[in-house]
């Protein structure tokens, strides 16, 4: 099958690669771009492990073809914190509240939470639970994840109150051109 060129931005960097038309976006990220932080738990759109942000909205990268992301701006778990820098407040809150055990579902949760908190900086418990009901976790029983999200929301609100508006939840690299 012929490969096609794909150009897109991932975590603030412009990247090129190639993929067959049938290659899923998840496989493209993992195999072509080496971004293995995005996990595959079901490959049929239910578990949410493969969740990433595409132009700011959460998508299941197992349900999209790589070619569908042509020209898009993607965010994956690798883009949340600098490799050597501090964790993103959401990541920090997950660790503080023991919101992860095996960590396999975690990247999907983190990306869903990014979207949730961008939409609503102060969600209630029920809202968080409803929002995250599309992400499966077998290890945690969820309540520490819910607590982590509440804590992360608090951290981000605090950080946002003093700083420049708009990018409270935005991962590294969304800020300006060049990334």
């Amino acid at each position, binding site marked *: 099958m012929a490969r096609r060129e794909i150009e897109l931005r991932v975590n603030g960097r412009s990247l090129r690669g190639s993929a067959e038309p049938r290659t899923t976006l998840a496989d493209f990220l993992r195999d072509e771009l080496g971004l293995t932080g995005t996990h595959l*738990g079901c490959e049929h759109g239910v578990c949410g492990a493969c969740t990433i942000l595409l132009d700011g909205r959460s998508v299941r990268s197992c349900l999209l073809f790589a070619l569908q992301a042509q020209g898009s701006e993607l965010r994956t778990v690798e883009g949340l914190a600098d490799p050597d820098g501090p964790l993103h407040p959401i990541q920090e809150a997950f660790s503080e509240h023991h919101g992860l055990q095996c960590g396999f579902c975690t990247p999907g949760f983190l990306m869903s939470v990014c979207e949730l908190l961008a939409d609503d900086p102060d969600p209630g418990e029920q809202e968080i639970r409803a929002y995250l009901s599309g992400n499966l976790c077998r290890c945690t029983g969820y309540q520490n994840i819910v607590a982590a999200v509440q804590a992360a929301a608090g951290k981000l609100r605090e950080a946002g109150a003093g700083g420049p508006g708009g990018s409270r939840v935005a991962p590294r690299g969304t800020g300006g051109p060049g990334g």
Partner: protein
Amino acid sequence: MAERWVGRRLRRKEDRRLLTGAGTYVADLRLPGLLHAAVVRSEVAHGLVTHLDVAAAREADGVVAVLTAADLEGRVGRFPEGARTEISPALVEKVPLEVPSCPMPVLATDRVHWVGQPLAVVVAADRYRAEDGLELVEVDYEPLPAVLDPETALDPAAPVLHPELGGNLAARFAFSTGDVDAALAAAPFRLRQRFAMGRQAANAMETRGVVASWDPGREELTVWGTNARPHLLRAYLAAMLALPAERVRFIAPDMGGSFGTGVYSEDVLVPFLAMHLRRPVRWLEDRRENLTTTRHARDQVHDLEAGYDADGRILALRDRFLVDSGAYNPYAITVSYNAAAHLRGQYRIDAYAFEGRNVLTNKAPVAPVRGAGRPEAVFAMDGMVDLIAAERGLDAVEVRRRNLIPPEAMPYPMGMPYRDGVDVVYDQADFPGQLASALELFGYDTQRARQAAWRAEGRRMGIGVSSYVEGSGYGPHEGAVVRVDPTGHVLVVTGAKPHGQGLETTLAQVCADQLGVHPDQVTVRAGDTALIAYGIGTFASRSAVTAGTAVGLAAQAVRDKILNLAAGLLEVDPADLELADGRVSARGAPGTGVTLAEVAAACAPGPRSRLPEGAEPGLEAQRYFVPPTVTFASGTHVVAVEVDEDTGFVRLLRYVTVDDCGQMLNPTVVEGQVHGGVAHGIGNGLLEEVVYDDGGQLLTGSYMDYLVPTTAEVPPIQVGHQTFLSDRNPFGIKGVGEGGAVSPPAAIASAVADALAPLQVDLSELPLHPERLFRRIQEAKARQRGSGGLKPGPPVERGST
């Protein structure tokens, strides 16, 4: 004084890599020249393979090889039956056991036994092409009648899966303690009831995967896989591929859960392919394969008979039960004997008899999964207690209390051997105290008041209680190496392999206490057979108990060595020294003395060594902990539910647990284990069921059909603790990994029974997914209409007084 780390809520060391996408799971490994395998699986539940043609697949674009059983002939052995051949001799002496041999083939030959059984494997340049190849493999079957129900399977007229066995019985054992016949005959009241729990899948979020690489020059095999029993897998590979064990290295990298054990065809097939093709090969399971064939569990039917008195005290108990093992029985009696050994849980029932049988059917083979036989047994036992209470018109919680073993009777002998052959004697515990504190935490009186108020409004709320004990920390051993490197950093190696439990943190805490260092100064490595000679692995809630103890013992030995050596260097008495902040200093004079790095340097071999004559160089120790038997952890769960009578939907309103896992290494980690276990148990109780149709076709091959609990179903879980130290290891640890999953099905069923008490709904079969519960409610209503009144529904048989 050095800081004490054990018992503290330390944040996990593994978090950063897992949160940043920098973890390494099997699917993340990249090797140059990697080939990809996909497995051809049986599409029928039972049949003869009349035609298997792989020629077209072999020609397909990108396909490198297609192998069938014929290609393995003489080169790959059948699976060793470790669980059968290594049944404790001490157990065999006490309990008559019958476990016929029935080894599993890696690839099916002329006959298939379940939908999903591996038949052939396609290897290609990438996974897409390997899966294209699958489509081109032609298989014709002559279908044979399938048997899906274990009782039917025992009928002499039933189709037999493995003709060489002459029937479908895969194991049988029986035992009794006390005079059960006499006690039953003498009991004022008797009840019989059947309890069944459906089949369930372990369902780790990471599917299984294997990567293998063969070094033809050195004739060495390296295998990476999702398996928490690295040494066992290495032993299997060495035996099946006829290699020396030390030329097989098995590495389990980060694992996305497991919740059970198992060695599977791909675990052997992929390494064989790497050897055969002289290229690294990878196989990644997809979710459909996972739900079809990986770690199925539960699927038990218990027929209980109890004799009791007017106060609801149980005087005798008999259990005859079947475990539907599926097409093979690779775990022999592991799960079935667990069920028998844990049935009585916290209850004092001195006259007890059981007969367990494993039965073969045309389903995927079952494996031990979180709880491993206990959830089924506890559901049956607590269900019986509920029925007894209902029969006597007593409060079910009160009947539980009356039957609990009192604390003054501890340590209590249960009159039967555990699976390791050692007689079951419960550790120190206070079961009535545990129930009392669980009820208090739950706000029992408030919740009962709420229930009464809701009932008045026509809402069906119920409260359920369940308790369990868990033999945790199964042996036979686990080891650890503790080594201080030249920089003063500490390495811990163990044979147990975490798959999400935070062992890198908790074992570092254990080690840090002994050596007076911060846990950040300790690196824990696990899951690699090259690092330690023997290992057992992670299952049976054993890692904190066995690996934790081994690490503690090895670290103590290193500590002694440090103190002795430093005493020589500093010319003081070792008793006057203390270890803190990475230094050895005189008591009361922190900051003086020598650093661990300096002591390590003094231990190096060579002319600068400061070791006494004849002492082994190296600041390290290796210790294997051989537990005398299991520790008995326990827990009590209390749940409130609301049942929607019109839909059969059960909503969990409140969930409380109190556990006793002895010394907690890290309470946050313990609570995380409980939360996850409870969520798993909620799935078992309310949602999850592997369903086959009458022909043995699997109906639950995706997450659209197999329902895993989400944030919407799992309520907040409030966790309380009791701490009774185990006397079976020096640190007092009991296991906690599985306990959370044991009681939820029973507690939920009990709460539903309470909610629907006036209707007397038959709740003897789990899970209570809305469809099943709706049907049972309708049946109960029809019965009531039929009999014109409130007559008990479940088909119980009553004995005479």
